[in-house]
C-alpha cells in the first residue's frame, strides 16, 4: 500500500514523457528538416568561400546567384498554385488528386484562347475557366453523385492528359501548339537591383499573383468564417451540418476554388513559355503530383506548402544550372526527390495529420 502513491507518481512522469515525446516529434520534425537544410547550405557557402575553385565553390556560386532564385520562383508558380488548390479541396474533405489534370487543361486552354484572341490576359482567364469547368465536373461526380474521389481524380487527370494533346492535334496539327506572345516581367525599380533578392522584384506577373494567392489563402483559412467552415467540413461534416451550414455547398465551393487556383498555375506555366507542349506527360510533367506532396509536406498550411514548393523547385533549378556548368546530376534523380522526401516524411515521421473526414462522402440524413 505504501508504495502505491510512488508507483502512481512514476506512472505520471512516464505518461508525461510520452506526451512530451509526441509533442517533440509533432512540432520539430519539420523544423529539423529546415534546420538541416539551412546548416547544409551555410556549410556549403563557407566551404565555397574557402575554396572557390572546388566543387563546393561552384555550388556556392550557383546557390547565391540571383538566376537560381529567379528560376526557382518560375518553377514554383504552377506547383504552388496547384498545391493551394489542393489544400482547399482536401481541407473541405475532398481529396483532389486530379490537380495534374487541372494544370494540363488550363495550360492548353490558356494558349488556345491567347492564340485566338491575341491577348495574354484573356488567355490566362481562358485557362482558369477551362480548369474550373473540369473542377466543376469533378465536384458534381464526387459530391453530387458520390463517386470515389481517388478514381474520379485519376479520371480527371487521364481525361486532361488525353484531351489537351488531342485538341492541339486537331486544331494545330501537332501536340505542340505554336508560340504566342508572353507578358513581360514586372520590375520594381531600385529593389530589383538588390544582389540576390532582386530576383523577387523582377519577375513575371504570375509570381506576384502567387504571393497574393498564398497570403490570401492563409487569410481565408485563419481569419474568415468560410475558412472555418471548410476546416469543419473536412474534420467533422456532421458538426457543420448541425450548425446549419450546408456541407455540400462548402465542398462545391472549395473544389471550384481548387480548380481556379490550379487553373492559374497551369495558365501561368504555359503562358510563361508561350507554348503548350503535349508530348508524353505534357509540359506539366508531374507538377500536379509534386503539388500534392508539397501541401502534405507543408501540413495543409498555405505558407508551408509554398515553402516546400520552393524547396523542391529550388533543387530542380540548382540541377539545371549545374547541368549548364557541366556538372551533371541526372535529372531523373532530382525529379524523384520530392516523392522520396514525402515517403520518408510520411513513413518515418507520420505526423502529417489528414483531415478526419477526407475522402468520405457526406450523407445528409433526410
Amino acid at each position, binding site marked *: 500500500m505504501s*508504495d502505491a502513491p510512488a508507483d502512481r507518481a512514476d506512472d505520471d512522469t512516464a505518461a508525461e514523457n510520452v506526451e512530451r515525446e509526441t509533442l517533440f516529434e509533432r512540432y520539430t520534425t519539420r523544423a529539423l528538416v529546415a534546420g538541416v537544410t539551412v546548416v547544409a547550405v551555410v556549410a556549403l557557402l563557407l566551404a565555397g568561400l574557402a575554396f572557390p575553385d572546388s566543387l563546393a565553390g561552384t555550388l556556392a556560386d550557383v546557390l547565391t546567384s540571383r538566376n537560381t532564385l529567379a528560376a526557382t520562383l518560375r518553377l514554383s508558380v504552377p506547383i504552388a498554385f496547384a498545391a493551394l488548390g489542393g489544400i482547399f479541396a482536401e481541407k473541405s474533405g475532398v481529396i483532389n488528386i486530379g490537380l495534374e489534370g487541372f494544370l494540363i487543361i488550363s495550360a492548353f486552354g490558356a494558349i488556345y484562347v491567347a492564340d485566338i484572341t491575341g491577348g495574354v490576359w484573356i488567355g490566362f482567364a481562358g485557362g482558369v475557366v477551362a480548369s474550373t469547368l473540369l473542377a466543376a465536373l469533378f465536384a458534381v461526380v464526387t459530391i453530387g453523385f458520390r463517386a470515389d474521389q481517388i478514381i474520379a481524380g485519376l479520371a480527371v487527370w487521364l481525361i486532361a492528359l488525353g484531351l489537351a494533346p488531342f485538341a492541339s492535334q486537331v486544331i494545330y496539327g501537332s501536340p505542340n501548339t505554336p508560340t504566342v506572345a508572353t507578358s513581360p516581367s514586372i520590375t520594381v525599380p531600385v529593389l530589383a537591383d538588390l544582389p540576390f533578392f532582386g530576383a523577387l522584384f523582377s519577375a513575371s506577373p504570375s509570381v506576384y499573383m502567387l504571393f497574393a494567392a498564398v497570403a490570401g489563402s492563409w487569410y481565408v483559412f485563419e481569419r474568415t468564417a468560410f475558412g472555418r467552415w471548410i476546416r469543419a467540413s473536412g474534420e*467533422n461534416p456532421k*458538426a457543420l451540418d*448541425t*450548425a446549419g451550414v450546408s456541407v455540400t455547398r462548402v465542398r462545391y465551393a472549395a473544389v471550384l476554388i481548387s480548380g481556379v487556383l490550379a487553373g492559374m498555375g497551369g495558365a501561368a506555366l504555359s503562358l510563361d513559355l508561350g507554348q503548350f507542349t503535349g508530348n508524353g506527360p505534357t509540359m506539366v510533367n508531374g507538377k500536379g503530383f509534386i503539388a500534392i506532396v508539397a501541401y502534405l509536406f507543408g501540413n495543409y498550411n498555405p505558407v508551408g506548402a509554398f515553402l516546400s514548393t520552393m524547396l523542391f523547385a529550388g533543387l530542380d533549378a540548382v540541377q539545371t544550372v549545374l547541368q549548364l556548368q557541366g556538372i551533371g546530376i541526372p535529372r531523373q534523380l532530382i525529379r524523384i526527390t520530392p516523392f522520396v522526401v514525402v515517403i520518408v516524411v510520411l513513413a518515418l515521421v507520420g505526423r502529417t495529420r489528414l483531415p*478526419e473526414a477526407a475522402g468520405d462522402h457526406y450523407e445528409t440524413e433526410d
Partner: protein
Amino acid sequence: MIHQHFMLVDPMTVTENITLGNEPRKWGGLAVDRRGAREAVVELADRYGFDVDPDARIEDISVGEQQRVEILKALYRGADTLILDEPTAVLTPQEVDELFDVLDELTAQGKTIIFITHKLGEAMRAADEISVLRDGRKVGTVDADATTQEELAELMVGREVLLDVDHGTAETGEVVASVSDVVVDDDRGVRAVDGVSFDVRAGEVFGIAGVDGNGQSELVEAVTGLRTPDAGEIRFRGEDVTTASRRQRIEAGMAYVPEDRQDRGLVMQFDLVENGLLGSQHGAEFAANGRIDWSQTRGHAEAIIDEYDVRPPDADAEAESLSGGNQQKFIVGREFERDPELVVASHPTRGVDVGSIEFIHERLLELRRQGVGILLVSSKLEEVQGLSDRLAVVYEGEFVDVVDPEETTEEELGLLMAGERPGDDGGGGGGPEGTASGDAAETESGDASETERDGPADPTNAGDGERA
C-alpha cells in the same frame, strides 16, 4: 439538440466550435470577429455558470467539458428547448452529477429540456414528466414524482422485468485465462493499457468497469488476439497465447462478443446464414476441404435464431435489417454456441432494448453455471455490478482496484472510476475478509492486492438508485 455523439470539430477551439456557422463578423463579413466571439462565449458560460476554457482545443478537454460545449453551442443560437440524447452515456458518475446541476440551472432560467435516456434512474432524477416509447409508439406519460422505476420498466417492456439479476454464488474452477503485466499501446502509440494483471476462473464472471476509453478496448483486443500487446503475457488454458492468432484462439475455445457489433460482430450486407458462419469458417463442421456446406450452415443459423429468440426469425434476412437488440442476440448466440471455455463480452448490451438486455444477461449467467469463464467489460455500472463475481475498475489503463461488487456501493465505484484509489480519501473501515475477493486478491495486480475500502456507509440507499 445535443446528440449522443458530440457534433464537435476536434482540432478547433471551444470558441470556434460554439460559434461555428454563426460567427460574429467584422469588416463587412470579410473576417471573423475573434475577440467578439470569445467574449460572447465567456459571457454565455458565466451566465449559466459553466466551467469551460474558451481557448482550449476540443481534443484536449474532458468529455464532460465537451458536453458543456455542446450545450453552450445550442444556447449560443438562442435555443429555448434543449433535446439531450443519451447525454450520460460517456460521463463518469461525478460528471453526471455536474450535468444534472447544469440542467437544474437551465430549467431555473426558463429553458425546456427534453431528456432522452434508457436509464430509469436518470429519467426519474432528471425529469418532471416522463413519456415512455416502445416500438415507435408512446405507451404512457407519467409524473416522475408519482411513479416508481418498476412501473417505468414495466411500461418499457410491456411486462414485468426482474431488475435484480438472480446471481447466486460462484463455483469457481481452475484458472482459464490469465493476463499478467500486459502493456498495450493504442493506434496513436499512446499507452492505453499499462501493466494489467488478472485471472479469469472457470465458472466466474470477472467484470471490468470504467468510463469508456480507459484502455478497455485495447485490453480486450489484446486478450482476443486482435492486437499484439507490447509487453506482458496472456495465458489461455495453460498455454501462452500472447502472440497467438485470432484463429488459434477461436479454435482453442475463446468466444468474443465485440463492443461494436456492426463493425466487428457482423458483416451488415451478409444474411444471417453467412454471418452465422463467421468465426467457424475454418471448422470441419461447416467447411470441410475448403468448401462451405451451406445446408449445414443454414441449419446452424436457424438454430441460433430459434434458440436466442432473434426476430424476425428469417435466416435470409440481411444483418442490417435487424434491430440492434436482435443483431446482438444473434452474435451472442453464435459465440455462445461455440462451446467456449472463455467468453470475452465487451459491452454486450450497449444500445440494446431492455428485453434483450435481460435475455443476454440470463444467457451469460447460464454459461457461468456451466463452468465457463467470462470476462465482462462494460461501462454500465449496474450491469458489471450485477453480473460480476469480481469487479476490476480500470482508469487510464490501470486497474485502480479489484472489488467484490456485492460489498461496494455505486458511489465507491464512481470514485474508483474517476481514478481515486482506495485509501486516498482516508479509507475508514477495514476491508471485508473471507469473501470472494479474499482468495481473489492473490491473483490481482500488485498495487491492488491489499485493498482497504470504506465501510459501506449507506448500504440501503446505494445501488438501487441507478439499476435498470
